[in-house]
Every structure is written in C-alpha cells, then in structure tokens.
C-alpha cells in the first residue's frame, strides 16, 4: 500500500514537471494540441463522408465503425498517457538519465515509462470520451455482460500495449539504438483504426495472432456488439497473461546486460 502511494506520488510529480517543462514552449505545445484535434476531426469527417456513399463496410454500419474508431482512440490514447516515456527510451539511455534511474530507489522501468507524461494527451482524451459517449447513445440497447466484457478487454488491450512498450524499452537498454522500433509500432497500430474484418484473411490472422493489434483495438468493440466468441475472449486474456511476464523477463535480462553509455 505504501509502495503504491509512493509510486502514485512519483507519477504525479513527474507529470506536473513534464507539464511545466512543456509550458515553456507554449506556441509549440499549442501546435501539437491543434494537430491532434485536426487528426481526430478529419478522421471523423472521412468516416462520415465514406458512409454518405455506402451503407456498410465489411458488414458494419456507420455507428458501429465509429465505435471501432473511438475504441481504438481510447485504448491508444490511454496507453500514450501512461507509457509515452518509452518513445524517448533511446535518448533516456544515451543521455545517461537511465543511469540515475538505476541508482535511485524506484523501479527504472516505471521511471522510463512515465518520464514524459504529456498533458496534451490528457486534454485530447476528453473530447474522445465525449464522442464515445455519443456513439454509445446511438447503439441499440446493450446487456451489462457486453459492457463488462468491453471494459475488461480495453484494460486487457492497454496491458498488451504495455508489454510491447516494455519490449521496446528493453531493446533500447540492450542495444542503445533501435529508436524506430516504437515508430513501427505506431504505424502498425494505424491498422487498428478499422475493424479487423476489413482485412484479407491472411492479414486478419497476422493482426490477431502475430502482431496482436486486433486484440488491443478491435476485440473490445466486437465484444460489445456481441460478435466475439467466448473462445476469443479467453484467448485475449491468455495472450496478455503470457506477454506480460515474458516482457518483464526480457527487461530484467536487458538491464543486467546494460553497459551504460560512456560519458
């Protein structure tokens, strides 16, 4: 309990420090915020435009496709709020900040993942939540089981994304390069914006079993719409249960091999 409180305190302090640091670049921060809003708006406009020409895509109506898109955003943005620090992992290592993380009595992995909380992410997630609420209002009535499955699968998705981030952070510690590892994740993540059913069967398999983007982004919405079998739900949780310990093991091994960059 005290440990939990300590980590909560450290997270809050880091977040507030990151915010102060960001605010020193006011105009720049505004640009980033605006960019994120633009992206959201355009994608929505695009969806709406598409559905002015067709009734359904891969069997999903406009509102259902919107649900997939909003769920993607919720999961993706939550992960960004929590794990953004990993994006700068290589820099953290090469500039020696990681040395300090290792010497201080706080999990270096925790310090690394939360080292750059972006308050703009927190601001942008508010309209996303509002829009998701609007999408929900338009869906047919939902059973509570579907809602619970939706919530749990979203948490599961965030946990799976966490495992990937741990892997990327470990690679950065191990090799002191591979900066682009996180960007390929971002690009592949783009595929999660659409319901996985639009893809050809081979791609769909790759996204479910290989790089499990679908499990992170598409599964929650499918479960909510009652289109995900119990077997797949179990698969999703089992996958995370396996991925988390594996990523932690890899992390520990990488830290033991850490060579620290020479100053």
């Amino acid at each position, binding site marked *: 309990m005290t440990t939990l409180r*300590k980590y909560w*305190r*450290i997270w809050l*302090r*880091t977040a*507030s*420090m990151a915010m*102060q*640091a960001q605010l*020193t670049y006011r105009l720049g921060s505004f640009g980033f915020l605006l960019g994120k809003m633009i992206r959201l708006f355009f994608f929505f406009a695009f969806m709406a435009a598409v559905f002015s020409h067709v009734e359904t895509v891969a069997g999903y109506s406009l509102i259902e496709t919107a649900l997939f898109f909003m769920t993607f955003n919720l999961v993706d943005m939550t992960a960004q709020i929590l794990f953004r620090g990993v994006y700068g992992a290589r820099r953290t290592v090469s*500039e*020696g*900040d990681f*040395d*300090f993380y*290792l*010497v*201080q*009595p*706080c999990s270096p992995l925790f310090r690394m993942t939360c080292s750059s909380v972006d308050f703009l992410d927190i601001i942008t997630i508010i309209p996303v939540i509002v829009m998701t609420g609007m999408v929900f209002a338009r869906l047919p009535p939902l059973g509570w089981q579907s809602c619970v499955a939706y919530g749990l699968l979203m948490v599961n998705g965030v946990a799976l994304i966490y495992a990937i981030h741990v892997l990327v952070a470990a690679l950065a510690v191990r090799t002191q390069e591979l900066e682009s590892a996180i960007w390929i994740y971002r690009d592949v993540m783009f595929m999660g914006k659409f319901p996985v059913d639009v893809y050809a069967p081979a791609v769909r398999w790759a996204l479910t079993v290989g790089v499990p983007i679908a499990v992170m982004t598409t599964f929650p919405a499918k479960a909510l719409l009652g289109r995900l079998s119990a077997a797949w739900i179990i698969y999703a949780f089992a996958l995370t249960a396996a991925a988390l310990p594996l990523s932690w093991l890899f992390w520990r091994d990488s830290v*033991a*091999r*850490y*060579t*620290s960059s*020479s*100053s």
Partner: protein
Amino acid sequence: MAAAIETKGLTKDYRSPLKEPGLWGGVKSLFDRQYKDTRAVDGVSFQIEEGELVGFLGANGAGKTTTLKMLSGLLTPTAGSATALGHVPWKRESDFQRSISLVMGQRSQLWWEIPAYETFKLNQAIYGLSEADFREHLDELVELLDLGEHLSVPVKKLSLGQRMRAELAAALLHRPRLLLLDEPTIGLDVIMQKKVREFVKVYNKRYGATIMLTSHNMTDVVELCKRVIVIEKGRLLYDGPLDRLVERYADHKILRARFTTPVDPADLKILGAVIKYEDSTITLEVPRAQMAASAAALLRSYPVADLNVEEVAIDDIVRRLFTHG
C-alpha cells in the same frame, strides 16, 4: 570499524560487435556476428573503511568510471564480487539505494527547463523523505552550497557552477552514507572548484560519509584525499597514502638555477634533463641519487646567482604515471 566498500577480483568486460567494412560486411554481420570483448576492469580488489575519503586515479579509459558504476549498482560485473554498505550493489535493493548517491560531473539529473527545486521534490518522493526531513536537509544544503535564490530559476539559465552545486544538492538530499563522485569539478572555474571541494570536505566530516572520488584535477586529490587508489588499464596499480605515492614514483627532483650571465643550455644536459631555459634561468630534472653531484658541478663551473632544489609537484607525478605507465 566495518568496511564501507569491499571488492574482490572485480572484473568487467564490454562486448561489442565487430564491424566489417562495406555493404557485404554489413549483410554478413546480420547473420554471423563476431564479437570482441574488451576488459575494462581486471580483477580489482580493495577495501574502504567507513568515513574514508579516497581518491580514485587513472588515465582516461583506465576503468575508474566503470568501477564506480559497478559499485553503485548500475552495471553487473563479469566476474568477482563486491559489497557496499553490506549490500551487493547490482541487486539494487532499495535499502542500499537509499543510502548511496552517484554524482557524475558530465551528467545531470536535473530537469533542464524547470527550476532545480522541482527535481528536489521529485527526489523527495523517490527517496520517501518526510516533509520535515526534506526541509531540514534542504536548508542545510542550501546554506553549505550557497544556493539561495538559484533554486527557483530554470536550470538551463544557471551557470555551470551553480548547476553543479544544485546537482550535488539533488544527489545528497537523502543524506547518503556512501558518495561516489565522478569528476565533480570538471569544467568549473577555479573558484567554483574550490567551493565544491570545500563542500565535499565538510560533507565527509559532518556526516562521516564514505566518499570515493575520481578527478583529473590534481588539486582536488591533493586537498581532499589522504589515500589514493590508482588503476591502469583496468588493473590496480597502487593503493595507499598519497605521500607514499610521491616517494615511490618521484625518483627525480627539480633543480632550478639563475645565472648572472647567459649560458648555453645544451652544455647542461650532462647534469640532468633540461625542462626549461629562459631569462637566464634553467630548470633541470635530476635523479635523486645524482642531485648532490649535479648541484656541486653547477656551482663549480657556472656563474650561479641563485639555486634551489624542489620536490616534483604531485600532479606531475600522477600525470606521468598516466602517460608513461
């Protein structure tokens, strides 16, 4: 008294992939990668008592920083063992981490864009300091380091000296019993160097903290450390009092003479190595055993106005150790 640090055969290898030139070499290394092991620290054993202030000397790349990084738990050694304050450092137990600190002159844990005070508050959370302890420790450090109003200014606006002192404060807020300092005065001007030195001395005295310090600045070592450990290419070369290091390695003395009329310095070579000749003053380096004879010869055959004999400066000895060794 218990040993604060004890190492036995501490060894660290760095492994780096061998790079073959050219595109083909690059493709080949994708599949069949060759590695080269470099031994940075080679079987180093020593013991440091609690409360000691020890200088850790060696040339660039001798393995000083690597040793400090192992002792602070950053790096896991390839072989050998070490304990610091009774812990194995690289297990990174939180009790251990709460009682040590590592300061690297070329690194900063302070956040660049915001005031140093914010980093202090973060460290308060990390080290779990109560508000009262935090206040007390901070006030003391502010006074000792003369930090005052610098704490509320963004770190990027501080001078190098101010930043280094803020850095020290951040590292010492939790009042560590073991302090590892890697080049703490690097890049500072002479006055700032002095301030940092005085602080290190006071911290060692007041809290009985064990301090291990590397520096390229010999004044740091001479003024702070009674005992020094010298390593060379990863191996322990000397461990003992600083004075004895001088006796052992200073087999020369310096002979300085001023002449009433100019002389040809080439003629004086037989008396010792000529270091400098200007304004009719010669500086010679003469082996200890030969000193009396050389001085007598000089007085006998040249118009000497003034003559004196000095010990070689300590920095010169150490410097020579590093360059020739």
